[in-house]
């Protein structure tokens, strides 16, 4: 089982909303919706690992850090993201990072 933290992306949220609509119309069961989400987790993990090849650098000031259940949560202020030549400044950003080296694929709930 892959990390479930990608469910809190635009893609993951839209999928959950769509599944909720089908559940309300009783077209699918909640168990089936859960299966869909699990399949989504696998698909997005595989896609990010295999289909994306870009590098980003960033610099800012660390406001808060937290480490719990092998999950890091950071809050940074005045962050500059740089990709090749592009520069984007963000006042506040939160980083939720799961252990990338862990081979365990336990369900990781969202930490936000």
């Amino acid at each position, binding site marked *: 089982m892959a990390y479930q933290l990608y469910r809190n992306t635009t893609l993951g949220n839209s999928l959950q909303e769509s599944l909720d609509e089908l559940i309300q119309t009783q077209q699918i069961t909640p168990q*089936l919706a859960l299966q869909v989400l699990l399949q989504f987790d696998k698909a997005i993990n595989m896609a990010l690992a295999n289909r994306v090849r870009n590098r980003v650098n960033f610099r*800012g000031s660390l406001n808060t850090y937290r480490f719990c259940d092998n999950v890091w949560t950071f809050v940074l202020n005045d962050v500059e993201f740089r990709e090749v030549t592009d520069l984007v400044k963000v006042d506040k950003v*939160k980083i939720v990072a799961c252990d990338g080296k862990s081979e365990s694929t336990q369900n990781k709930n969202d930490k936000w």
Partner: protein
Amino acid sequence: MLTNTAPVAKLYLSIIDDVIESMRELFTDEGLEDRVLDDLRQIWESKMMQSKAMEDYRKSNINSSNFVLQLPANYNRTNQELTASVVIPNNSGILPTFSLPAGLSYPVQIPAGVTLQTASGQLYKVNVPVVVTQAPAGQPPVSRLAQVIERRESPDPPSTAAPPDASRPPQEAEALSAPAISDKQQQQQQQQQQQPPPPHPKTNFPPGEESALPQQPLVPPAEASQPPGAHFPQPEAPPGESEPNPPPEPATLCASASPCSQLLDFQISTEEALTQTGQLRTNDLDDILKEVIEEERGKAVMARKTVNQSDADLGVIKKLISLLLEVCVCVCTLISLVLQHVLITLVLTTHLYPQDPLNSGDDVVEQDIPDLFDTDNVIVCQYDKIHRSKNRWKFHLKDGVICYGGRDYVFSKAVGEAEW
């Protein structure tokens, strides 16, 4: 990163396809039709297209047609045949657009056998003759002006007018006459009261004078009772003397007289003594009465004096009490004024110079933790390494999705530094 939106959209679409295709078998195992899975796909794609994450992808594809009209080689406009129009269902929510080859304009009659190709590369063959026309422009809504009717409430005519003036004077006259009559009656009563009362006979005399009147008639009879020719050794006591003379001794009077004469003399003497004693007694009574009267007069005077003194004392006391009351009232008013002044000053000071609550500066304001982590800009990723040296942190991240400003960005590697 900003140029990464198109790959992100393609990545998302590929992920959608993978998920849908992987769930098709499971749906069939659950006994569900493919229509349900297609509905899920359509809803999912529509939500993604509506979000800002696919905005750039949507904008970049807005001019591209969904259908490319590919006409066969033997297509000739002159061979157009009238056919029924066909409405392409718009299930996906995407407005189908047609791009016409050069030289063609609306309406276009498509005979059977024409092949249509979508932007995604899918081919559709038209088996039925189709006429493609351009949709008429939407008419602007007609605005209607609402008519506002103002109702003005006219004031009611004075139906119930004031009572006529004619009724007033009589009433007033009656009102005026009534007090006049009462005034007259009061005047009469006052006159009656003012009339002096009928004189009453004075029966009450001052105690000193009362005793003097009957005293007078007593005196002359006492003087008249003295026999003529009787000589007494003692002079006649004038009335009013306080010291009555002792009764004379009858023995000295008749030393040489006969017994009869002595008896007569004795009798006369006794009579004279009796009269003298009577006179003396009357004189004594008069004196006593006089004394009593004088005493009573004195007592009355004393009583009057005492009464007057008591009256004066009461008046003084009353004056003192009134003065004390006035002083108390003044003191109370002074106290109330002082209190009012104090209250006014307090109110003014509190309003003009608002004071912070006590010990308000001692509190240390702490940031709310829930608000600290509450932000729309989120990076979801995995970490390879997190390093800290004193207050300098280094982040080595991978396989992340950045959500910033409603848009999504992806990265395979991210290296960052931050100072805490």
